[in-house]
């Protein structure tokens, strides 16, 4: 792996985080599912500078990949991010992950749920191909119910067509 492309991706991810409120659904927002299967679970997000922390995983490894309109295929950038996720998960076997698929608001509700599931599944399959055990991964789709960016232009839509890998302590199913 070369250094330069990875550094560029990191900048892009941090850029997104800086201009949005990255409400990690299922990772302790308390909005979606406060008492559900993957609530905050008492996980400390830790420090971004601690490479063993969930905060490091989401901000530095990158917990998010983006998709083109109506698509669920992974871009080269997305594959790079996911390879990083797979490496981190390989060295942190105490964590399992739920991959959340999302769509932008330009679609009907049911279709977007199905589309988000396709995206989450693309990520799950890639992570498995990179050596992550399938029983450490689950998928869920939020369709267009949880946009990250709230404007109604392509700038925001591009950020909302995403799959987010949400990690939590637990060895998986």
């Amino acid at each position: 792996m070369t250094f330069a492309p990875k550094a560029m991706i990191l900048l892009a991810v941090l850029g997104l985080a800086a201009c949005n409120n990255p409400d990690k659904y299922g990772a302790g927002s308390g909005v979606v599912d406060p008492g559900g299967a993957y609530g905050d679970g008492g996980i400390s997000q830790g420090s971004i500078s601690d490479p063993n922390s969930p905060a490091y995983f989401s901000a530095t490894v990158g917990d998010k990949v983006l998709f083109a309109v109506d698509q669920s295929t992974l871009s080269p950038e997305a594959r790079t991010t996911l390879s990083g996720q797979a490496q981190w998960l390989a060295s942190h076997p105490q964590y399992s992950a739920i991959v959340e698929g999302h769509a932008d608001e330009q679609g009907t509700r049911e279709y977007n749920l199905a589309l988000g599931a396709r995206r989450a599944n693309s990520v799950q399959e890639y992570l498995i191909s990179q050596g992550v055990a399938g029983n450490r991964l689950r998928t869920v789709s939020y369709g267009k119910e949880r946009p990250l960016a709230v404007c109604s232009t392509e700038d925001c839509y591009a950020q909302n067509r995403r799959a987010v890998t949400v990690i939590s302590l637990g060895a998986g199913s």
Partner: protein
Amino acid sequence: MLRIALAALAALMIGPGVALAQQGPLRIEITDGVIEPLPFALPGFVAETGDAGQMAADITQVIASDLTGTGLFREIPQSAHIQRFSAFETPVSYPDWQAINAQALIVGGVSMAGGKVVVKFRLFDVYSGQQLGEGQQLAASSGSWRRLAHKVADVIYSRITGESGYFDSRVVFVSETGPKNARLKRLAVMDYDGANVQYLTDSSTIVLAPRFSPTGDRVLYTTFETGFPRIKMLNVGNVSAQLLPETPGTMTFAPRFSPDGGSIVYSLEQGGNTDLWKMGVNGGGATRLTNSPAIETAPSYSPDGSRIVFESDRSGTQQLYIMPAGGGEPTRISFGEGRYGTPVWSPRGDLIAFTKQHAGRFHIGVMRTDGSEERLLTASFLDEGPTWSPNGRVIMFTRESSGAGGSAQLYSVDISGRNLKAVTTGGAASDPAWSPLLP
């Protein structure tokens, strides 16, 4: 002979050689032409017991609101009335009503006794100087007075149009609060006109797309309460709900009852692929109906239960298809430009309402079941999710505004594309589903 021309409705409703259900002197008839709402006079219903004054006024107001809300009727203000009714039995002075150009006259009386309300009414054709139909009397507990008013309005609507009404009905929907990126959603049910909102769930988890059973006593919806989309069935009477069984590791959503109420058609996602399935309402007998790598969702039965219309992107974009209710080869019915989703079969069986996306806009539209005669009824930044009034004449849907402050609201429009208006829900709302006419 009274006529109101309701242009596009005509072609859709009345096929060649099919006579109207009834012929009467007072009549809104559906022909080509421009709508001119039928003027009616509705003197305040007479209070026949001392304590019924407010109730009589309230019932009169709801009847007037139901009729004018259709866009088919126009009320002549009470201040213009010449004749006054001091008693329900007061003889009608037709010249007094002809003089103010009333075509229909509704006279009623309201009495209260022992917690019950009794409403009686008569409908008159002013120009022919005749009563139209028999007088009727309806009774209910006083808490159900709005339903009495809606039932009176349904009878009047039915006698003048020859079609069944839709006022005594309810709408289940999703009530929304909070910012766009953390929307709180809860199920609610209300009268069709937005009155009597009652919440059916709390907002602790995302709930989507409720659907009434054919008898209106149960609601299917999608909930994220387990962390994953799953189907739940709610008993409206006692507001208790249970999750339907599912295969672990799958997502289930987009449920809808069969017309006999015995089974549920829904979408099941497994390994990223969404297909249509059905199961019994008790959760047994899950059967796969489609088997393709494409997305199949938003299924809706034909009223006779023999076919299912749904959306699929097997052609590359969302389009509408019809297949036998037991599965089998689907036939594509949508061929226009753009993408088609959320098809819903009309209770009359003649039309399919849908959401269309084209050139960056959303539309609610209708087409015949063979895909012909597509007509778009609305256009906006985001219109979606049509539901039919019980008589198949009006469509309610979700309209969402754009931008960071965007929010959803319920709208209704008739199938000619007229009478587009917001439905009052007391807050942001989405995903309406209309009940059948209440018994």
